[in-house]
């Protein structure tokens, strides 16, 4: 595949990821706004849930395209079976992600754990790759980019942890109405997540700049 086409796809998936995640973030502000009616907050939640699949899949597309692009940049030969295999692997992950997201009710714990495991593997893979001398010495910006991706994945896992009390509290809000306890839980959970989300955005924007500027500081 041509470098230009891969680059174009990489930029496109970045835009898709960042754009739709901003949409999710904006909808999340309405879900915790006690000045809004429960019906409005519920609608915002539905919007959030529907939209949230797109950045999840877009991130995986970034994961699919990024290594191929990096290999081309570094001049590493990648056999057809290797990149096809890699793309199929990521595609399977995307199917897993969609299955989790579109599950009726609570998703299967096995699938969620598998997804978490894959994310941990990706995170560690990024760190190991970033620390490789041939990467660090030739393209330090790529090492930093990999580090930023690892941070993004770690923050994403952190968001899952901080949002754990949010869904039950939101369920309470809808079925029994707003109470100070429910509002406090929602607010606390969302505030913690927002910090991590802002870190993710900083990482993603920095990584994008590094990909464009490719600064050399040796």
């Amino acid at each position: 595949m041509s470098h230009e086409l891969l680059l174009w796809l990489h930029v496109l998936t970045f835009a898709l990821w960042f754009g739709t995640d901003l949409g999710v973030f904006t909808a999340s502000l309405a879900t915790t706004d006690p000045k809004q009616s429960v019906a409005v907050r519920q609608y915002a939640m539905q919007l959030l849930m529907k939209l949230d699949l797109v950045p999840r899949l877009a991130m995986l597309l970034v994961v699919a395209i990024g290594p191929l692009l990096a290999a081309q940049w570094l001049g590493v030969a990648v056999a057809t079976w290797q990149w096809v295999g890699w793309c199929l692997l990521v595609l399977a992950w995307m199917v897993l992600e969609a299955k989790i997201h579109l599950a009726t009710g609570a998703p299967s714990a096995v699938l969620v754990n598998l997804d978490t495991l894959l994310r941990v593997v990706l995170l560690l893979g990024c760190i190991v790759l970033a620390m490789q001398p041939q990467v660090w010495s030739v393209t330090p910006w790529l090492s930093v980019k990999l580090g930023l991706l690892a941070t993004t994945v770690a923050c994403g896992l952190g968001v899952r942890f901080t949002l754990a009390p949010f869904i039950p509290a939101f369920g309470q809000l809808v079925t029994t109405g707003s109470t100070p306890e429910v509002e406090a839980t929602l607010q606390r959970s969302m505030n913690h997540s927002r910090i991590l989300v802002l870190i993710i955005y900083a990482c993603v924007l920095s990584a994008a700049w590094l990909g464009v500027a490719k600064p050399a500081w040796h």
Partner: protein
Amino acid sequence: MDQRLPLSHVKVVEMSHMVMGPTVGLVLGDLGADVVKIEPVGGDKTRKLRGSGAGYFVTYNRNKRSLCLDTARPEARELLLKLIAAADVFVENFRPGAMDKLGLGWEALSALNPRLIYCSTRGFLDGPYQHRTALDEVAQMMGGLAYMTGPPGRPLRAGASVIDVTGGMFGAIGIMAALEQRHHTGKGGRVVSALYESTAFLVGQHMAQYAVTGTPAPPMPARVSAWAVYDIFDTADAQQVFVAVVSDTQWPVFCREFGFADWAEDATLAVNSGRVTRRDLIIPALRESLGACTKADLMARLERCGLPYAPIARPEDLFADVHLNASGGLLDIAMPDGAHTQLPALPVSLDGQRFGVHHPVPAPGRDTREVLRELGLPDVEIDALIARGVIA
């Protein structure tokens, strides 16, 4: 009455709106059935009606639990089917074919739960009109009731949703018959009640009058009275009172009380048929005599004589009605917004007791979690479904 209400073993799933379908659930719920009302996410649109429909939801939805579902979503329909599989009765009032499209038609649900009693409330029973859309007023117009209610040439609907409520009552009667039948057959059945046929049933007395007399019944305001005194009289204080003298024993009592002793002795007026022919003499004299009394005085004298009478009350007057308040005829109803009012109880007593409120009028989805927990769904599953907007 036994603490256990008569229908407390019956589980009902009600998927209806407006008046007729909810009336079915109201009757069953008041009698003790566990009625789960299925509402769309955000609540039944009947809740938001204004004007003459503003009281519909509060009137017809006490003693029910509310479960909000987005039936357009397959996950929601799956939950609904699970609920219906464990139910005794399903009540719906959507246009013909709508439930089939959702996979909730009679064939599908009876295959799922052969013991299910499926009640549809419709505009018309099966026949040439079955696909027409009907409303209470449509049925009153085409069923002859509006013609009979208004003055000649001015058809008028009755002053309450009598056909919707009657149709709902017949639906509930049909369900109770089907429940009894199920005791013998072990199988459920399909009950359909309809507005038009309910109207025809009520108007049957006028059809019979025509059959018996050979003369069409004129509208009520222009009818030939069957009794000599069966009229509304103006009082001295600009009020109105309805007075009836319908038996030959009431007549002399009435005459002596109001100073017409000579009429009491008059043999030509001793029987009702004789008095009816002399209404032109009797009624003007009574208007003058009774019109000199105040409303309170007139009612006190009629009460003392044991004669039928009635003040011309307005619906809001019933809140303070002595009899309804003293006899448990008005129930304290907590409305979804927290305000309280009093509304009439089911007009029947069993062993001298009236049926009360065991579940206040629900807010939308008030019982979603409770109902789904009973179906065996864990909270984590319920919360996830809420977050996705499948339930609320």
